[in-house]
Structure formats: C-alpha cells, structure tokens
C-alpha cells in the first residue's frame, strides 16, 4: 500500500533519450520501478538502459501498456507531450519540467482533470514510494520504508527533510512533490486526502512555502482528517513582491505570507517546524 505509485505501476518516460531522461531512467530502474517504455519522437527503435524507445505515446501504449508517464520534455513542448500521453490512455502523469508557461498549464491541467487523469507537477521532483517505485528525480538513497507520508511544493528542500526523517528512523510511505508552480495538477488538499485514505500511512509531513493559499486550504482540510499532520514553511524572511525562484513563491498584496500559513496550521493543531531538521523532532515528540 502507498499512494499514486506502487508495484503495479508501469511507467513510461517521455524525453527518455535526453540527458536528464537517460540519467533518471537508470535511477528509477535502480529504485525498483517498472519502466516499460520511453518516448522520443524520431528515436523510435532504440533503447535506453534496456527500455524500448518509441516515436509516439500511442505506439508505446500498444506495445508496453504503461499506466503512468513521467515527462522530462523541455518546457516549450511539455504541453504537447502531456496531452499526447493523456490521449494514449495513461492515468497518471508526472511532469518534472520547469518553466512551462502558465497559460499552457491552464489548458493542460483542466483538460487532464476532465479526462480523469491525475497530474503531479509541473516543476516538481516527482513521486517516490519508498523501496517500491519512483517517477521523478528524487535521490534514491534518502528514502527508507516507514509509515509517514510527505507532500511538498519544493525539490531539494524535500530531500533535506526526507533525509532528516530517514536519519531519525522515521521512514516514508510515499513522497509526493506537487510542484512549485502557480497552477498544479494535484493540490496539497488532494494529496492529503490520498494519504488520509492510505491504510499504511500513519501521518503526513507537509512542506510548504510562501505564495498562494494552498497551505491555508490544507490547514482547513486537516481539521477533517484522522491522521496527524506536521508542517514546515519556507520563506519566512522573504520580502513581499520578490519572486523567490519558484514562479509560485511570491507574496502579492500581502497574500501568501509565511505568517498566514504558520498561523493557519497552528490553529488547525498542526505543529510547524522552524527549521527543516526540526520536522523529525516534532514527529518524535508527538508519539
């Protein structure tokens, strides 16, 4: 048991012949993932680390029956690639690509949702179910099997926190990087709902950051959950109006401040860590 990705996931890699695609295909295979197909237009017939490469998602689908796809395609072509995968019939789409125009996401994400396809990302590190399968770029060695779910808007900060949890003996079920863009496929609330239903997950760590209202919405949802939630919020010292790297991480007109998010979590009874390595301490002291 886990969320989104498990033993039965058959993964397709879009953009598999690129530098990132090749490298991470190797890593995902090493993690134990069933990578069944790759797609790069014009490179059909070749293979990457033994994974057959196809010219189109349709061909990949009829030959290898993937259930999920991870997208490494560069931003200008990512919308096209994602819609091609949806039309071919995958049910889960993990979009790693960063800097996709927001108007492309305004087309793509509602379209995927209307088609009943779950999208993770874009601009995200992907998802990993510890010891089982991974679709994305999260480093393999930081994970350990355990009962804690992780949801994050960030990449490297997630690794920092997962690593701290693993060192503290707090293993994970699944880590879901929902991404740092203003429009994402799966919201923090939706990810929390997945973990709430997962029998193996005992509690959830939420790694948020400034910008938007995802954390405030998550805090409201936590009140309806039976499982404990712990949080960390990055950007407490970020000045308003500055875009802090992620397109989504910006305080606009006083909205999306760290204080508002910390307060919302506090009122919902969610302990909020002051620094990344305090997360395992908070979990420990609640047990």
């Amino acid at each position, binding site marked *: 048991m886990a969320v989104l990705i498990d033993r039965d996931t058959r993964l397709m890699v879009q953009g598999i012949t690129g530098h990132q695609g090749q490298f991470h295909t190797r890593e995902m295979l090493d993690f134990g993932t069933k990578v069944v197909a790759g797609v790069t237009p014009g490179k059909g017939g070749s293979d990457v680390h033994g994974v057959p490469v196809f010219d189109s998602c349709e061909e990949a689908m009829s030959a290898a029956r993937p259930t999920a796809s991870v997208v490494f395609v560069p931003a200008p072509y990512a919308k096209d690639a994602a819609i091609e995968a949806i039309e071919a019939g995958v049910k889960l789409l993990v979009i790693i690509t960063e800097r996709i*125009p927001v108007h492309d996401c305004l*087309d793509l994400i509602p379209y995927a949702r209307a088609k009943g396809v779950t999208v993770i990302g874009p601009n995200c590190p992907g998802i990993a179910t510890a010891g089982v399968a991974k679709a994305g770029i999260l480093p393999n060695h930081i994970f350990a099997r355990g009962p804690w779910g992780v949801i994050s808007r960030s990449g490297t900060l997630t690794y920092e926190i997962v690593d701290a949890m693993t060192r503290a003996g707090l293993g994970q079920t699944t880590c879901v990087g929902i991404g740092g863009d203003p429009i994402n496929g799966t919201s923090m609330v939706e990810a929390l709902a997945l973990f709430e239903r997962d029998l193996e997950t005992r509690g959830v760590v939420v790694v948020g950051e400034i910008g938007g209202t995802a954390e405030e919405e998550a805090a409201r949802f936590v009140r309806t959950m039976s499982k404990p939630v712990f949080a960390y919020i990055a950007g407490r010292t970020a000045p308003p109006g500055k875009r802090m790297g992620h397109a989504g991480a910006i305080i606009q007109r006083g909205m999306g401040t760290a204080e508002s998010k910390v307060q919302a979590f506090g009122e919902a009874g969610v302990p909020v860590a002051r620094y990344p390595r305090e997360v395992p301490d908070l979990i420990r002291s609640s047990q």
Partner: protein
Amino acid sequence: MKFYEYKAHNIFRKYGIPVPRGVLAATPEGLVDPPLPCVVKAQVLVGGRGKAGGIKFAHSVAEAREAARAILGMTIGPYTVKQVYAQEMLEIAQELYLSIAIDRSARSPLLMASALGGMDIEAVPADKLFRMHIPPLVGLQPYVLRALARRLGLPKDAAAQVTDIARRAYDLFKGEDAEIVEINPLAVLKDGRVVAGDAKLVVDDNAEYRHPEYAELEQDRTPLEEEAHDKGITFIQLDGDIGVIANGAGLTMATLDVLNLKGGRGGAFLDLGGTDDPEKVKQAFEILLKAEPSVIFLNIFGGITKADTVAVGAEEALKAFGTKVPVVARIKGVNEKRAKEILSDAGMHSVEDLEEGAELAVKLRGSH
C-alpha cells in the same frame, strides 16, 4: 514581467481597447504636441508614483514641459525616472474596475469587475465586487459578459462598451501570455465613451520565448540581477549582508530563514539549480561577490549532484577572484568526503548541516 504604462497602453491599443492619447518623452523639450490638457506621468515600474509627486497636470505645452522637468530624474522607490508620458486628461463621469487574473486554487482565469473603480481593489467590499471564473478549456462565453453587464448596472450603451472591452481584455490575456490584465479605472467619460484610464499588464516570464519582442523590455531588476539573468542564473538581492548560494528555490528560502533564526540576514541569494558544472559554480561566486557580502554560505543538497565538482568550482572561484570573504560550505551529495577535503584545503569552513552552517556564517560576518 511588468510593463511601463505607455508600453502597456500600446499593447492594449493592439487589441482594440480604447486608451487615452499620449506622448512619451525623455526630455522636457521632447514633449512635442502633447494632448491638452494633459496628465504628465513618471514611467516607473512601481506603484505610489502619485504620492511621490510623479504625476502632474498641465494645461499648456509650457506647463507640460515644466512638469516633465520636475519629474524627470526624480527617484521613485529604487528607480530614477527616465521617461514621462503626457496623456490626454479625461473628463470622467464614472470610474469602474475590470481585471482578468489567474485564480490558482480554481486553476482558472478569473474576471473581476466593480462599479467602484479608481481605488485599490482590496478596499472594495466583497459584495460590490463581481467575480466570475472563465472556464479555461472553452474560454470566455457570452453568459459571463451578460452577468458582468447585469452586475455593473450600467446604461445599455456603456454596458455594451464595457463587455466589448472585457472580451478584448481576455483576448489580450490569452494572446500575450498575461498573468494579470487590470484596468483601474475603467473610465466612463462625460461624452459617453468608455476608456481604459490606466492599464496594468504583467506577463509570464516563462512565455518569453513566444514573445521575442519582450526580450528587450526593461525589467524591474537591479543591474546585478540583470547580469545574472543574462547568464541564466537566478539571483536576487535582498537587504542583509550574508550571501547565500543554494540549489532549489525551497532550500534557498529555508537557508535564508535559518540564517535569520540564528540572528543573521541574507543579503543576496543565488539559486544554482541542478548543476554540478564547476564553471557555473564559479560564475555564481563571481556574481555574488559583486554584491559584497560579509560572508558567503554555500548550501547544496545534491542528492544526485556531485558534491566534489561543486567543491572544485568553489575552490576555483576563490583562487580566481582572490577574495578574503569567509566561506562556509555545506555540500551533501555524491562524493561528499572528497568535497570536504577540497573545501578545507581551499580554506573554506566545511560543515555538516544547515543549522550548524548558518550559525557559523553569522559568527564569521565581517571577520576578514
């Protein structure tokens, strides 16, 4: 990216949205034939220019040039005024508000309008604000415009002009990859025309490749931020004194937060992203050193990044630029042990974790 008012006006004109006539000038004498009477406005990328004295009224060419003389060279926020825009003074009967922006939670464009325009939209009471989502997959349908007209309660002729402007604003929003299109006030004039009194436009940086004409736009970046941008480096100047190089937006913010928690303050940060190219690390140091930090904290959680190649980049940078600024380095990743040796040999302070590093960085401030 944001636009100067006059540039936004030009884009609005392209989509057939009526805007006031105006002329741009970089010198008082450059104001040839301004529409009279006119409003002379400083062209800067920050709000609050009215309060700063950057907006003046003029009834003759001489007055307009006088106003331009007073405004040009003025400092508003971090900017020096280099251009003024002399714009036709409107005889306004009613000020409305109209905007299209992106509602993140709903994953949809949101049309907002109000009969109470001309003020900060945050100050408009919720029941006086029309809000309706535009379903992104099908675009702006007539029912949205009918609802808009009903809610504003305007006479038929004005209502028709407003809905036409709303439709064109949506075309602009889509066509220009905008994040925000805002008209405040949307002015109903005494002669019955409806004109965009002020035009605000923010377009998506990530869509720059679809709009090569935006590449030459002046940005609201500091010169150093501009230099970094040209090199493809995410670099942001803040008001503290500790320079931070980290990888990933979230970890960078967390690093600044921990520095603050330990009593320090980030002065600039640089996001190295997923690179382990020593040359890129060297470039990062070069940019950061120009911001004259009192100490540099390098915090990399590599995972798959090779720690030793990052360390080599840092070592080469210190050698090349001969700096005496103390460097605290924490690099996690493949070949971590080798990285530590390289860092120590080069005279950097190698630490194990983020909190320890932040503490040391705060301690070493200005110790050179």
